[in-house]
């Protein structure tokens, strides 16, 4: 359970985030693994997401452009169709009036009965007319046929009457006039036999025009209406009627053909405007046909689709980000672990090389000292011989004691030089199968008496599952002996010494030698394997025991580590291969 939690923590928050091994830093290939991790994620994200974002935006742009173009085209087509309908409506009625004045002449038309008959026929034939009237060149209405009684009214100042005189025909804007009802008129001018002119005027049924326009409406967001050139509404608008019957969207610029363009309404919402300036082939008009569509309405399908695409894109981006983060974390952690292993090897190699060079120096020094030491030994020995063998000064114990102390000192120095030489030299390893349990028992036997005397409890736990180790007997014995000696020196009377072993995988055995003695301070912990390093009092230790042990463990292709806390005790862990490969040894 704990292992799984640790593994999960390692996956989410790997070791390189913590950077807890300052001493390995100089050997790392990448100095800042967090930065490397961040950069990796950034580059991968950018590589994966930027093209995706750009492609999506281009796609959006393409779709929108295509929809806009299509919408403009459709609006223009609609405006064009509606224009044709309006133009046809007006021209049909102007043509009818023209035909009527030419066919019937002034005299017959001024007959009220005839005029009513003409109106009835026209209504039957074309429809869309409310009344008919004949107006003399003075502007006075001469004859009237229709629902209102407007005979004798003066139209001489009406704009449509003036325009009719000028163009021979006219189409008026919507106005209220004498009947006080908004309407529009069409009129044609004709010449009487006496050379004077008269005008035949008809009032159009605006409802019919409005209906005709409405039939072109497509969708709930479209609006079709007529305005004059000042923007005054000529037919009602569903959405765009502003103050005093003016439309509340910008008036389009003049164009002689149907056009469509993008614009915005008074709320700033995008709209499409299709428009046409309407002229008949008989008389000009001031009408502008307006087709207005709300863009949002037309884009709804696309906007819905875009919302789905955005969701899909968002979820994909989150999944990509998660996969990239996870993959980057795992990969960077793998690189970090490999780099860390390399750094540890470098540190170990550096320490080995340091120890080797110190070893070589030690060997040189030891050899140089050995010769004068041998001479001092022999000379002092000879002097002692003179006293003891020759019997001349046998009775002077003081003198003999002094010489003995010289020989003792030489002996002690000799021990040091022998250890130094042993430390520096590389020797062959002779392997044989060794039972670790028996070997530990043998070593403990050396210390049995001392342990009893000092009341030190020795606990050995080497399970039967530990296999025979193929290694060098003498060297392994010396390693264990040195470590046990070391522990005995570190612990006080009544303390304990715990020796246990366990397998580390199928190929390695770990031997733990643990005491609850004085411990090693943190400052000293890194130096314990260095030659001449000792915390013992002068003359009590050479400072070579652990460095020799270190060398021996290396020679057996093993590894030794130490963990210690001051006043709590020390644990040495020796890891050894179960089999030493002969070819490595040679």
């Amino acid at each position, binding site marked *: 359970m704990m292992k799984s939690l640790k593994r999960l923590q390692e996956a989410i928050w790997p070791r390189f985030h913590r950077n807890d091994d300052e001493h390995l830093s100089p050997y790392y290939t990448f100095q800042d693994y967090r930065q490397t991790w961040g950069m990796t994620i950034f580059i991968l994200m950018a590589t994966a997401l930027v093209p995706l974002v750009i492609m999506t935006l281009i796609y959006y742009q393409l779709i929108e452009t295509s929809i806009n173009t299509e919408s403009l085209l459709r609006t223009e087509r609609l405006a064009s169709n509606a224009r044709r309908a309006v133009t046809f409506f007006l021209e049909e009625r102007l043509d009818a009036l023209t035909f009527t004045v030419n066919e019937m002449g002034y005299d017959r038309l001024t007959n009220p009965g005839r005029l009513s008959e003409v109106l009835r026929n026209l209504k039957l034939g074309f429809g869309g007319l409310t009344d008919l009237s004949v107006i003399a060149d003075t502007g006075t209405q001469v004859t009237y046929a229709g629902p209102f009684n407007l005979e004798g009214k003066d139209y001489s100042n009406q704009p449509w009457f003036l325009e009719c005189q000028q163009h021979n025909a006219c189409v008026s804007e919507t106005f209220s006039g004498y009947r006080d009802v908004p309407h529009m008129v069409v009129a044609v001018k004709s010449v009487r036999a006496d050379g004077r002119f008269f005008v035949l005027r008809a009032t159009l049924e605006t409802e019919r025009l409005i209906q005709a326009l409405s039939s072109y409406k497509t969708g709930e967001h479209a609006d079709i209406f007529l305005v004059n050139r000042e923007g005054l509404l000529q037919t009602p608008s569903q959405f765009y009627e502003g103050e005093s019957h003016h439309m509340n969207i910008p008036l389009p610029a003049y164009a002689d053909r149907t056009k469509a363009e993008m614009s915005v309404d008074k709320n700033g919402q995008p709209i499409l405007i299709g428009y046409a300036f309407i002229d008949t082939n008989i008389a000009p008009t001031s009408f502008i046909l307006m087709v207005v569509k709300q863009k949002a309405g037309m884009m709804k399908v696309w906007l819905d689709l875009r919302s789905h695409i955005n969701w899909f894109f968002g979820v994909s981006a989150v999944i990509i980000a998660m996969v990239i983060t996870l993959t980057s974390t795992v990969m960077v952690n793998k690189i970090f672990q490999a780099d860390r292993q390399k750094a540890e090897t470098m540190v170990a190699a550096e320490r080995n090389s340091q120890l080797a060079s110190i070893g070589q120096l030690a060997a040189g020094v030891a050899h140089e000292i*050995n010769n004068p030491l*041998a*001479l001092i030994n*022999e*000379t002092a020995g000879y002097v002692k*011989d003179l006293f003891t063998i020759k019997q001349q000064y046998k009775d002077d114990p003081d003198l003999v004691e002094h010489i003995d102390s010289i020989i003792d000192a030489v*002996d002690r120095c000799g021990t040091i030089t022998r*250890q130094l*030489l042993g430390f520096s030299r590389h020797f062959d390893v002779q392997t044989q199968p060794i039972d670790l349990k028996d070997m530990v028992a043998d070593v403990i036997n050396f210390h049995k008496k001392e342990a009893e005397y000092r009341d030190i409890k020795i606990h050995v736990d080497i399970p039967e599952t530990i296999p025979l180790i193929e290694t060098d007997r*003498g060297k392994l014995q010396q390693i264990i002996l040195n470590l046990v000696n070391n522990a005995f020196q570190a612990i006080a009377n009544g303390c304990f010494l715990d020796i246990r072993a366990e397998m580390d995988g199928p190929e390695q055995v770990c031997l733990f030698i643990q005491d609850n003695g004085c411990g090693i301070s943190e400052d000293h912990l890194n130096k314990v394997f260095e030659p001449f390093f000792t915390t013992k009092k002068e003359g009590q230790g050479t400072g070579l025991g652990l460095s020799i042990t270190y060398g021996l463990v290396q020679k057996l292709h093993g590894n030794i580590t130490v963990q210690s806390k001051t006043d709590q005790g020390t644990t040495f862990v020796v890891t050894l291969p179960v089999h030493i490969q002969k070819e490595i040894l040679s």
Partner: protein
Amino acid sequence: MKVLLVDDEQKFALMLAKRLALRGIEAEVFFSGEKALDTVEQGHRFDVAILDVKMPGIGGIELKRRLGLLDERMKFVFLTGHGSKTDYTTGALEAENYLPKPLQIEELIETLNRLTDRPPGASDPDG
């Protein structure tokens, strides 16, 4: 017992010879392998040769080989300032009697007695 003592450390060799003499062992001292070889070639015979391993010219190992050719019965003891006895558990000196410097005189005497089959303590001049 006649002993051939060869060591380039002259004072050491002389002092050791004196100490052996005090114990009744006659040692002829040479400071180089070549001179020792000349002497044996001239027909001088020794029971044991005490040889320093490392010397200028002919070293102890080579000297042993050549002396062995001249006198098959000669026994050998090696002295050296390099390392401890356990260091030489294999190699050229494996089967030889080896004593590290500085010497323990008792150990040397015991080795010489063993090689010449003299009883222990035979070195005592009074014995």
